[in-house]
């Protein structure tokens, strides 16, 4: 194992257990200069833990953390040159905004003028220069959020760490801050690691997304790669809303036959026969009101949003199917409609392991 690395941040075989509970099971990851990386995954999957390991607030049970080519396992949090925005902001309640921003810099015995310069420029960047003399208790949620980010900025860190920074904000503000953090990234150009369990945040902000489940990385990739080529059933289901449809079936001699009745020829690159799951995105499915198409579904429920229509239907064998249409159509409950499933939008997953199966010759 070499002790060097050319990436800004590299994790090698990181494991973490709290007592007898294993939380992180061997994570490998490399992050390059200037990237905006989002960790996403269901609640309790270990995102925060991973972030705290990187920050140095917790120690990994085993594995190496490399920062700018150097192993930093033994380096205390304060000397790693990272800064972190906490989910609850962790602003010092008894200090003014200005003191909150300068407190960390004073610890490094920085020059007063330099501190003032950094605080002012950060305040300007985040538009909190009017608030510098207030206490955190006198700020709104969004303003507190900015102060917390400001406190991270003034440190001029190698990497910014965000732990679900927007989860305490209401929906509208969340949208606004999302855009602002993205702009901030463009402006500063620093490496950022951002933890969220909201896949929309992940899709909109990330250069690369890391999908975690139960302390393991399921897939790493650019947002659209994850959307278009999910590595397994979990990622396919996690990314995209409404969720991808999953239909059970089996393959025999390159012929896919679904339990709901459809049969189709498919070309599998590697695998022979066995049970598979077919995944298909709701927007890939076509609809005909007169019942023509590959199969019929019974409309159980539907939502007309104007620009989009969601149809929630079921096959005769009970399997559910969600369809998303970019137009308005007249619908009734319990009506039977026809659906077309285009082969080129199929995602096939192994029935047992859930791994994606490559199609093609």
């Amino acid at each position, binding site marked *: 194992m070499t002790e060097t690395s050319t990436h800004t941040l590299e994790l090698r075989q990181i494991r973490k257990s709290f007592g007898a509970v294993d939380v992180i099971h061997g994570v490998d990851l490399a992050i390059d200069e200037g990237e905006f990386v989002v960790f996403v995954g269901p609640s309790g999957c270990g995102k925060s833990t991973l972030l705290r390991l990187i920050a140095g607030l917790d120690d990994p049970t085993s594995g190496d953390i490399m920062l700018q080519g150097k192993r930093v396992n033994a380096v205390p949090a304060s000397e790693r040159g990272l800064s972190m925005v906490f989910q609850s902001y962790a602003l010092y309640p008894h200090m003014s905004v200005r003191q909150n921003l300068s407190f960390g810099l004073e610890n490094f015995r920085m020059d007063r003028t330099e501190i003032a310069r950094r605080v002012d420029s950060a305040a300007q960047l985040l538009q909190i220069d009017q608030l510098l003399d207030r206490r955190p*208790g006198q700020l709104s949620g969004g303003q507190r959020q900015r102060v917390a980010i400001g406190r991270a900025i003034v*440190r001029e860190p190698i990497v910014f760490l965000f732990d679900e920074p927007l989860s305490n904000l209401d929906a509208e503000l969340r949208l606004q801050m999302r855009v602002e953090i993205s702009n901030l990234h463009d402006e500063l150009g620093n490496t950022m690691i951002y933890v969220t369990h909201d896949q929309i945040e992940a899709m909109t902000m990330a250069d690369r997304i890391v999908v975690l489940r139960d302390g393991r990385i399921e897939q790493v990739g650019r947002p659209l790669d994850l959307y278009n080529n999910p590595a397994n059933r979990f990622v396919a289901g996690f990314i995209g809303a409404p969720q991808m449809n999953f239909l059970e079936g089996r393959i025999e001699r390159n012929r896919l036959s679904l339990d709901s009745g459809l049969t189709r020829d498919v070309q599998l690159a590697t695998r022979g026969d066995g049970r598979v799951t077919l995944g298909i995105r709701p927007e890939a499915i076509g609809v005909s009101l007169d019942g023509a198409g590959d199969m019929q579904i019974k409309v159980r429920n539907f939502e007309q949003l104007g620009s989009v229509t969601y149809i929630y239907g079921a096959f005769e064998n009970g399997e559910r199917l969600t369809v998303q249409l970019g137009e308005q159509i007249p619908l009734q409950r319990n009506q039977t409609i026809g659906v077309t499933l285009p082969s080129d939008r199929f995602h096939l997953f192994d029935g047992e392991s859930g791994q994606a199966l490559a199609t093609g010759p």
Partner: protein
Amino acid sequence: MSLAAILMMMLGVLWIGGGSVWLLTRRRYKLVQAPSFLMDLVGFPVEYAQSIWGRGGVPYALLLPNMLIFGLFTFVPMILNFYVSFTGGTSILLFNRPWVGLQQYADIFSCETIFEPRTCSNAGFSFWTGMFNTLWFVVIQVPVLCVVALVTALVVNKNIRGRGFWRAMFFYPVMLSPVVIANIWNWVLHRKGVLNEMIGGTRDQLSTMAGMTGFDIVVTVLLAVVLMVVSERALRSSDTPSLAWTAIFGALLALLFGWANPLSLIGLGGSFWLGGALALGLVLIVSSESRLARIAIIAAGILSAALLISIQFDAVFDFGRYRPVNWLVQPNTGWPFFWLVFVFTWSHMGFYMLILLAGLQAIPSDLYEAARMDATRPARAFWRITLPLIMPTLTVVLVLALIRSFQIFDEVYLLTGGGPGRETFMIVQNIYEVAFTNNNKDYGEGAAGSVLMAVVIAVFTFFQLWITRRQSEL
């Protein structure tokens, strides 16, 4: 039969008799519901109030017993105190007591100057002695109590093993009664008690050791080495000196001062305390992270080297024979007062520690994590984060400790009885003795003393709240 007894009897008949009738005519109870019936009977006045005035009357009925007791046994006495302080004589019957106006206060104030209780009348003498002793006690006791409680709470709040055990141990003396505490410490502090025995034994051993040849050289070299190691340790850690090592260094320095006794050159004692003060200053400088910290440690190192050398030239090791001190009885030594403060701290500290501990645990841990990310050193985190955030709790503790130590009675009365002479004679003891134990019980004077004491406590409490008002607003 007394007034109260008759009243109680009537009330009892009405409550139990009337209540039973009222309840039984309105509700059906099965035999198994007897407990439920009993509880309803206890709450009969509330039930009755509800039936007459509806739900609006219930809160008043609920508050009645508490308010009755508060009123009769707290507020009425408050007012009555003023009245009694304006009356004289020894009668217990209020209407038999002659009105004397401000005479009682005049007695207490009949001094040439109240700051010299000896120049007062008898009443004034014991009152002002008690008052000044108490003020002196409070001024020392409150800071000592709060600092010890805070330090203990901070240590217990650290990431230590067996926190519950330590916490319980420090709380244990709070559970003990003053009588038990006084008996225990009387026994320990007796002239032939175990404390004197221990001190004497240690001193004799030291004397024998010091008598051996070469002892001074060995000890000097040893001390020099230890001091070097410790100061090096203190200076080594990254960019500010380590506080813990500085503390050790300070303790050694104080010891060295006591031993080398530099003040004896100008004919004074108390070198050890000078050393202690210097050590404390050193620790404070280091904890405040001033730029002088390094220089201060180096200076202290040079000073200690000089002291060590001075010992070489002036090697007198005679600790002398130990004459047991009668801790609680010997006058003009300050020991009785010291032990009073010590025992009071011993027996009350645990309670204030618990409150402070709760305050410390209420500080969100992510503040400390944020501080860690910002490379905040522990001492700075204490001064800039912990202390400001614990300030509201600390204010509560200060006020409680103030009121509590102003009222000190049990411990003194049982340990020293106010002696030797009147060195530990406290104000509550004055009130108690004037009003209840003297042959002609002077309730008027006791009441006047109480009123004055209430005034002083009120002034002190407001003063303290006023000082801490800025820190406690958040």
